[in-house]
């Protein structure tokens, strides 16, 4: 545990700097949008109602959804202008967080200005101020304390929501939290949460000092607090201005196996002289598009996932034929290179407690359909929305008493504790053997193949040096080795980090 805390803390400075930069940029953009709108709306009650209504609607969109929404929007925009707009990483995070910052700033700016004593405005008119002079000399200083309170709220929200930008590939303190949640590593989660909370509290306190200083007209104090904020920003920004070596980016979806394989690939590329960075915790749908767009240079996907989701194919050809077709399609439609299969499969499977399976006489999904109406199905968050589930359900006529979604780690706990009777397991999951689960056979071949395949971006599809570093991984990882590596990260006691598991796996496969 201690060494895990040390590892997490070691990643902290770089992630903190990214987090600070993203939050500050989003807040600045939010201010640039909402201050002028607030001033305009303060003079026009109808406009104020419309703008505040729109900002409130945006606020009700969950943060994750808002971030995910920007991905297709930016992708479409990029193809419209002929490419060049990054759809992942900093830009979508910035836009989503800025929109979040708008409501509190806009609301408080309007309230600050409309709350000014009308006699003061009459006096400003009476002495002959222009509209601009009234704004700068009277409305701005008098509304400042109220507007500043809105800016504080926006800053705290933005810093909190910035942790979600991890899911669209922007490094932030969320990297620690999401990695920790997926690998059940409490230390990582805590370090990430505490750091984000501390950052929010410090920024809130400094902005609070500015607010009080403005309200009491203590210019000196406001400058000192503003100076402290500027210093913190500089500390985050200056290191990024120093020249960096070009790096390759390794992508990972949001589960343990992906984290481990990303690190395994990273170790190989570093050994081959590349500087490596990671975009981890990507949504399953986002990962392939990120690779095709060049935001990610290499990652591991699964043939069936590409087949069903990206290629929208419903048929289920034999393994070799599917692999060849995926490779052809990826190259022809997206310029993406298929390096090869890693040698194991991570297919969706239905699993039950071994004892239950024996007692109920269930050995295949066909047997399960007979007893399913009395059972509860536990799934990961996306399974019920996936075509694989529809294929299994329709092929076997499955109907359960209830269906519940969990994050993968909690899904296994739900099965162990009896909250669920059958789960959507993964065939490479280390917990299958460890928990003595029965994996049900698929006699009607409803579930496609899910060979783990190594994919590289269009920019590296013909890059021999790059491919040469990756090729030794092709066909090198038997499913037992992957299960063991996964279990080292997922188990509840003596947990390892994905880095440590990747190092173990590298030794195990002898490459």
């Amino acid at each position, binding site marked *: 545990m201690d060494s895990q805390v040390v590892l997490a803390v070691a990643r902290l400075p770089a992630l903190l700097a990214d987090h600070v930069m993203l939050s500050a940029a989003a807040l600045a953009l939010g201010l640039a949008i909402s201050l002028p709108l607030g001033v305009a709306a303060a003079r026009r009650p109808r406009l104020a109602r419309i703008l505040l209504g729109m900002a409130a609607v945006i606020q009700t969109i969950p943060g994750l959804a808002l971030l995910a929404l920007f991905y297709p929007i930016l992708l479409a925009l990029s193809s419209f202008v002929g490419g060049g707009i990054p759809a992942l990483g900093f830009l979508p995070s910035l836009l989503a967080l800025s929109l979040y910052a708008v409501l509190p700033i806009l609301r408080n700016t309007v309230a600050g200005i409309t709350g000014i004593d009308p006699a003061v*405005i*009459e006096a400003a*008119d009476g002495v*002959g101020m222009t509209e601009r002079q009234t704004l700068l*000399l009277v409305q701005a200083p008098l509304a400042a304390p109220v507007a500043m309170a809105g800016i504080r709220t926006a800053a705290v929200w933005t810093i909190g929501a910035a942790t979600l930008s991890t899911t669209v590939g922007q490094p932030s303190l969320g990297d620690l939290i999401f990695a920790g949640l997926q690998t059940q590593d409490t230390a990582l989660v805590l370090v990430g949460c505490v750091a984000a909370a501390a950052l929010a509290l410090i920024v809130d306190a400094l902005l609070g000092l500015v607010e009080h200083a403005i309200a009491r007209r203590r210019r000196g104090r406001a400058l000192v607090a503003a100076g402290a904020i500027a210093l913190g920003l500089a500390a985050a920004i200056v290191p990024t201005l120093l020249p960096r070596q070009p790096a390759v980016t390794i992508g990972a979806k949001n589960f343990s196996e992906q984290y481990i394989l990303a690190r395994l690939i990273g170790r190989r590329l570093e050994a081959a002289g590349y500087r490596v960075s990671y975009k981890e915790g990507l949504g399953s749908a986002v990962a392939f598009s990120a690779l095709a767009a060049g935001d990610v240079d290499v990652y591991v996907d699964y043939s069936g996932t590409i087949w069903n989701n990206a290629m929208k194919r419903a048929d289920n050809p034999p393994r070799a034929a599917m692999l060849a077709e995926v490779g052809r399609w990826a190259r022809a439609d997206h310029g993406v290179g298929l390096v090869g299969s890693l040698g194991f499969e991570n297919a969706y499977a239905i699993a039950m407690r071994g004892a239950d399976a024996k007692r109920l006489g269930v050995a295949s999904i066909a047997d399960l359909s007979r007893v399913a109406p009395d059972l509860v199905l536990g799934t990961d968050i996306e399974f019920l929305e996936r075509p694989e589930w529809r294929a299994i359900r329709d092929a076997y006529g499955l109907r359960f008493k209830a269906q519940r979604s969990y994050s993968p780690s909690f899904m296994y706990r739900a099965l162990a504790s009896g909250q669920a009777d059958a789960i959507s397991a993964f065939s490479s999951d280390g917990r299958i053997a460890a928990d003595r689960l029965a994996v049900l056979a698929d006699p009607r071949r409803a579930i496609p193949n899910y060979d783990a395949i190594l994919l590289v971006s269009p920019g590296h599809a013909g890059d021999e040096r790059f491919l040469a570093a990756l090729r030794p991984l092709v066909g090198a990882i038997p499913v037992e080795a992957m299960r063991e590596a996964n279990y080292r990260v997922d188990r509840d006691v003596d947990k390892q980090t994905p880095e440590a598991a990747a190092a173990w796996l590298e030794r195990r496969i002898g490459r």
Partner: protein
Amino acid sequence: MSGTNTLGPEVVFDTVTKIFAGTRAVDGVTLTISPGSFVALVGASGSGKSTLLKMVNRLVEPDSGSIALDGRMVAAEAPYRLRRHIGYVFQNIGLFPHMDVGENIAIGLRIAGERSRPTVRIAELLALVGLPAAMATRMPDQLSGGQRQRVGVARALAAAPGLMLMDEPFGALDPVTRDTLCTAYRALHDRLGLTSILVTHDMAEALLLADRVLVMAAGRIVADAVPADLLAGRAGAEADALVAVPRDQAARLRTLEAAGRDG
């Protein structure tokens, strides 16, 4: 400060009309106010007196008719430029709460381009309204009501206007402070040769301060007389009704006083 020999402008209203939501707040008023005179506009609430006043510095725009200062149409100039040479004092004062007294008084000079704080001029203006120079560094919320309105008057006088518009300026003050300020302002008016238009609902105040009293009802001027004629009942029925109030009060006070002496 304008010398005693130059007087404030002549103010001419030519069939000025203002309609609010179908009601004629000001209904075709034609009127000439001579340079350096002190005119009181008296009337009940809603009689249109404040609206008439605010059309002079274009805080309210007339629907028809025109207003001229010394022959120059007020509509010919940008409102903010016009207002910089007209003093405006109103009941709620509207001191800028984030500026000290000196900054409040000098605001007209600052918006016209003055860079540094005109300390001497601020002291001069404070003296003019009977306040010590040390008051300049106080914040408005540290002042009494009377002090605040004195600062309001000083602010209105800062740009050396010839014309002062006063909308119930002393209405919110206690009677003693009010009387003191009225007397002090009348002295300023004479000394600076101002043209002053005072809106008030208090006939006694109008009679004691003004050279000429205009009585308004339903947007029209229903009486126009010097105080002596008003008191003598030579200004018509509406005016008499308004004059009757302070006259009765004075009579009753005299009776009380006599009874006190006798008892």
